């Protein structure tokens, strides 16, 4: 049976359903801790007493000790003198990993506080400043003499005195929560309330206003618990909201932290998807947590061998309307392409690698191979081979924020090649990129807003490793 796109999808679905190998090993690993709203706590509340005691104990340790207050703050950012220690200055901002990195950071920090305080029930509280009754610094953080206190010179003026407060525009979630795509939500949330709250402290001269000093103020961790909670709130709204589980970097990139014994631990996005099941905490009064899973496909599934048949120069998708068809010269390869297209153990694929855009294009592209002049570009056609959609990966401004990550696409070609070469007189295979947007109305011409470059274009044959032997 030939390797068609439909069959490929069918087999993929079958493999996923049959294996359903989720990361179940971490389910029900321990008790569930409740991260409480600090607005309901007092100076005598056990979580705040324990937090203050642990901070005092951690401050007695040298900054080179991973369990010290200085070291933990430096993981977020620091200007401490001396050689940089493992994991220092590793916080993620302006990237898709902003939320996941900070969730990991809070998780290990909370475990350290639990151990240092000797309180096995400790959980970090969150600062719910969107509530109009919680716009001032929580009172337990104001008096001198506890580990929660920071002098005015480093916290900023007016906070300990109870005169400075967060304005409504500082704490608004109106810009982030309605967004459906993860990147738009994360980017908006990172701005407001996250950055705005930091800067409100910075405007008064506080540590919180600057990345290298922010995590030295104990209120930092309550602020970030609230940001972490808002991530859950966003997901729980549904309506297509989901984490970027299709982004392998987001799922698999490893970040270094330290456990409560000072031992190095590595975590990935897949480890922190479900706060309660995987990390053992919930937020007070939050809606039921959405359960998302990283699929673990059996290893044979993705072991493919690739052989490049045709390489083509970079393709540019310019600003504005669609470019015309790109004609790939196939004179030398015509017979071979047809033979492979009919080989039941092989698949022809169009590989579009190192795809970059200078900003969000605001369109995606339907890709057609072998479309002839006058033929309509519709997804029902055998010439339609898939989509190129840039979201996060590949976008250098906005979602990617200048990161070096590029996007890669692999589109099955067998059907399209058979359809295109059936008549026997073609010397070239056309590639056509058709911009689409909301509604995907065929008759509408969408405009690409970014300079997009597909740096590596190739037609390859893909064989499962099993088939080779």
């Amino acid at each position, binding site marked *: 049976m030939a390797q068609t796109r439909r069959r490929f999808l069918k087999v993929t679905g079958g493999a996923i359903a049959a294996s359903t190998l989720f990361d179940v090993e971490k389910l029900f690993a321990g008790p569930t801790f409740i991260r409480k709203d600090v607005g309901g706590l007092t100076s005598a509340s056990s979580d705040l007493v324990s937090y203050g005691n642990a901070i005092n104990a951690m401050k007695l340790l040298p900054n080179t000790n991973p369990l010290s207050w200085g070291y933990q703050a430096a993981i977020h950012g620091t200007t401490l003198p001396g050689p940089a220690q493992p994991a220092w*200055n590793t916080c993620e*901002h*302006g990237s898709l990993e902003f939320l996941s990195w900070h969730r990991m950071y809070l998780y290990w920090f909370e475990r350290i506080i639990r151990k240092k305080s000797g309180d096995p029930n400790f959980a970090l509280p969150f600062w719910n400043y969107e509530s109009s009754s919680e*716009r001032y610094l929580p009172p337990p953080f104001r008096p001198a003499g506890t580990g929660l206190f920071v002098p005015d010179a480093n916290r*900023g*003026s*007016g*906070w300990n005195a109870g*005169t*400075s*407060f*967060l*304005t409504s*525009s*500082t704490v608004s979630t109106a*810009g982030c929560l*309605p*967004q*459906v*795509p993860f990147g*738009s939500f994360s*980017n*908006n949330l*990172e*701005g*407001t309330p*996250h*950055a*705005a709250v*930091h*800067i*409100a*402290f*910075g*405007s*008064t*001269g506080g540590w919180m*206003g*600057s*990345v*290298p000093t922010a995590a030295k103020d104990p209120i930092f961790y309550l602020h970030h618990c609230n940001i972490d909670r808002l991530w859950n709130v966003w997901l729980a709204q549904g309506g297509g909201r989901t984490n970027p589980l299709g982004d392998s970097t987001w799922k698999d990139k490893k970040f270094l932290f330290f456990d409560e014994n000072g031992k190095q631990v590595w975590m990935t996005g897949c480890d922190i998807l479900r706060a309660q099941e995987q990390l053992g905490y919930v937020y007070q009064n939050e809606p039921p947590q959405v359960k998302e899973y990283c699929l673990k496909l059996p290893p044979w599934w993705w072991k493919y061998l690739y052989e490049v048949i045709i390489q083509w120069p970079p393709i540019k998708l310019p600003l*504005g*309307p669609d470019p015309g068809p790109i004609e790939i010269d196939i004179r030398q390869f015509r017979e071979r392409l047809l033979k492979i297209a009919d080989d039941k153990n092989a698949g022809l694929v169009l590989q579009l690698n190192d795809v970059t855009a200078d*900003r969000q294009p*605001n369109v995606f592209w339907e890709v057609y191979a072998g479309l002839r002049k006058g033929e309509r570009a519709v997804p029902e056609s055998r010439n339609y081979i898939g989509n190129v959609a840039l979201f996060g990966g590949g976008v250098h*401004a*906005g979602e990617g*924020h*200048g*990161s070096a990550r590029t996007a890669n696409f692999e589109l099955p070609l067998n059907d399209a090649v058979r359809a295109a070469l059936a008549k026997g007189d073609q010397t070239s295979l056309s590639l056509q990129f058709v911009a689409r*947007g*909301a*509604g995907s*109305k065929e*008759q*509408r*011409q*969408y*405009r690409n*807003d970014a300079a997009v470059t597909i740096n590596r274009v190739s037609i390859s044959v893909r064989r499962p490793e099993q088939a080779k032997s």
Partner: protein
Amino acid sequence: MLQALLVAAGIITMLAATAPLPVVHIARITIPPHSAAVTIGVDLTRERRRLLAAAADRTLDIVLDLDGIEAERSPAVFFEVYIHAKNGACKRTAGNVALFGQGIRSEARGVFRPAHVQLVITDDLRDALRKSPIVAITFVAQGAGGLPSTPRSASAVVIARPSIMVAPRTRQ
């Protein structure tokens, strides 16, 4: 006669359907140090009708795209952004520009990353355009509430590539 009118109406509808989504590029914006507020004017006379049509389309949003935002040092304020008619009042904020962890050269680790902020301004722009084709964008420095003095930017902030664009709606 009626037939000709219908054909003409059909052609106009077709042209409207195939027209690309408009993007209005705005000149580089600089917010000088010690500023409490900065207002710039944008003449949208040419795009007014299409932007108003986009504002009425529930599948689209109008976005203020502020790309390439950078400051040498932390401005120690964030900026509330208002869209309003020329000489009109700032009523509700469209959102904030807040630099933390990106866009600040003195705090950059490794490769410097300018910040990129996108604010949905559909309703604000529609209201402003109904009053005037010349629209004002105002940046108001903001910090903690309750301070005795007006917040002012501690550093110049540059927005290298601002634009107003129409994009598929991503919120609900």
